[in-house]
């Protein structure tokens, strides 16, 4: 894939949206009072990280790093495979953490009958 002369627009959209996602996610984690909203914030920040990972692996004019029969022997540029492998791991780990977080939210809701931090006050926050 080669974006030609419009490379700059794509650069801004990729980096801009990824960093925006991370910041919006962290904002939700820091400000929001609802536990589910906080977990949503975490998964937004994660999504931004994943986009950044793929973005740094991208190479101008590169193709997917798969040597399928149509590619073998041709002289092709391929995108960097390492960030893609890492982001696969990161996605799965992110899902695991989200699942554990949500199970704790359910547990807390059963005890307090609320999912808001400001009403769960047995420990100092």
């Amino acid at each position, binding site marked *: 894939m080669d974006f030609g002369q419009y490379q700059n627009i794509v650069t801004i959209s990729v980096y801009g949206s990824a960093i925006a996602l991370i910041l919006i996610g962290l904002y939700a984690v820091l400000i929001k009072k609802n536990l589910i909203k906080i977990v949503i914030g975490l998964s937004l920040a994660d999504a931004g990280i994943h986009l950044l990972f793929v973005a740094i692996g991208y190479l101008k004019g590169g193709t997917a*790093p798969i040597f399928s029969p149509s590619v073998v022997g041709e002289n092709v540029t391929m995108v960097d495979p390492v960030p893609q492998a890492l982001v696969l791991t990161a996605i799965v780990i992110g899902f695991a953490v989200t699942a*554990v977080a949500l*199970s704790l939210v359910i547990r807390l809701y059963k005890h307090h*009958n609320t999912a808001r931090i400001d009403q769960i006050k047995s420990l100092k926050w």
Partner: protein
Amino acid sequence: MKNIIVIALLLVVGFYLVDSFNYIKFGDNRLGAPSDEKTVGAYYLNNTVEKTGVANVITAIIVNYRGFDTLGEVTVLFLATTGLGSILYRRRKEGEHEERVTKESSYLLQTGSKILFPFVILLGIYVFIHGHLTPGGGFQGGAIVATGFLLMLIAYKNFKLGHNQLTWVESLAGITFVSIGMWGLITGGTFLENSFIPKGTLNSLFSGGIIPIIYIAVGFKVAAELTGVLDILLSIKPSKIKK
């Protein structure tokens, strides 16, 4: 007030991030010329086909070059299932049967799920068997299989998930993964070494030595673990309103 402080803080962080990414031009060739392997990425692209016989470089990285990461990763999922089971554990009363709390769904959904279910499972299995040839692999295929089971869990209140079978699949897949790794060690090589099965020809189903075997084991393990997570979450008793 807190709002303003947090926004200011995040703006500073954002500024530094944008500044950092000024050094990293999008789409630049950071791999170096193919002849000099400046980065590990370039090495993988140049050597994967020759040395592992796998067409999908990402699969080669995940299962072989960085296979140890993947072992850790399936462990993370395994721990998430275990942790979820421990956090949401509920002692069963005498004679109480485990049953999900979903409502009996409509006839349409039930028939639809029944028809779709085998195809979804087949698709998942296809994805993880062909992980070394086409995009996809153990994780993706496993997740698809879990989605298939999710359909059945939602549609049928009485759909029985054999917990025994789930544990067996999960454990055996995990044991397969570690034992293949240990076998490399026993035969005098290194952990997870891809040496004792012929590499085959590129782009055929039987190629890549241990890579497809491990990826299939990962597929089964991930499917069992994700299904387990969904099953635990779907069997929660709704909390009684105390007020």
